[in-house]
């Protein structure tokens, strides 16, 4: 009987102790203090900090609504881009035609340029190749 009464006493003391330790208000306060010490608080603007992102999303949505093709692959071009050849730039026939070019020292470069109605042909030899 005495042991039973002691056990109850101990049990009651233990429950009081745990109850005090798990005091909700104190626990919540300590939790908040911990979070403030180690984590950034909620910004002053709150939800408004996401406003620029929201504006961008809305703009993209508007663009897609206006022209959905921007989300699609571009259409294939059936006619390739026109590149003016020397004949078209300088007229028939080309002013200078390179029949053959050989260099033992390195690569060569040949290009023609339209300069004030007088087409000029440049042949350049790169040495050390």
């Amino acid at each position, binding site marked *: 009987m005495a042991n039973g009464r002691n056990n109850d006493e101990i049990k009651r003391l233990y429950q009081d102790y745990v109850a005090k330790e798990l005091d909700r208000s104190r626990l919540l306060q300590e939790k908040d203090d911990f979070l403030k010490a180690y984590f950034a608080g909620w910004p002053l603007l709150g939800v408004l900090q996401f406003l620029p992102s929201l504006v961008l999303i809305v703009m993209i949505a508007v663009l897609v609504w206006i022209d959905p093709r921007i989300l699609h692959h571009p259409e294939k071009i059936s006619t390739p881009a026109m590149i003016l050849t020397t004949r078209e730039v300088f007229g028939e*026939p*080309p*002013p*200078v*035609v*390179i*029949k*053959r*070019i*050989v*260099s*033992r*020292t390195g690569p*060569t470069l040949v290009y023609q*340029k339209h*300069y004030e109605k*007088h*087409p*000029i*042909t*440049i*042949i*350049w*030899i*790169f*040495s050390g190749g």
Partner: protein
Amino acid sequence: MIKPWKLCLLTMGMLIGLTVSAFPEDTTRIHVTILTASNFGSDFNLENDAFRDQLLNLFSYTSYNQTDKFFIDLPRAKRQSRTLPGGYEFILTLQNKESGRILVQAVIRKGGQQYVDTVLSILNPGVVFLGGPPVEKGVLILVLETGY
């Protein structure tokens, strides 16, 4: 005594013969200008001011010096050689001439090394810039002009 009309005919014949021999039909004259281009300084030593603008447009060198210029008369199928600065040899050969175009072979070589061997069909008048062989403090640029 030779009769006057025979003498006149003989004189005319001689004059025509001399004219034809002085300007053979298959001879082409090419004007060659030799330039040295470099990035040392900013000198423009050119007799022909028209080259200045062309060189500025075509190349990125800062200095151009004209070292020589000459005419080369090219008879058909005969090599004409000239010495260039830096010990180079420049050889031109007229291979053909027809329909307002000339077919010319241009060779630049030094010692036993051939820098370029090219065959060009040029419409008269025409301009060709041939460049790249290195010389002291720069490179050579040859300006070939035909029909001017």
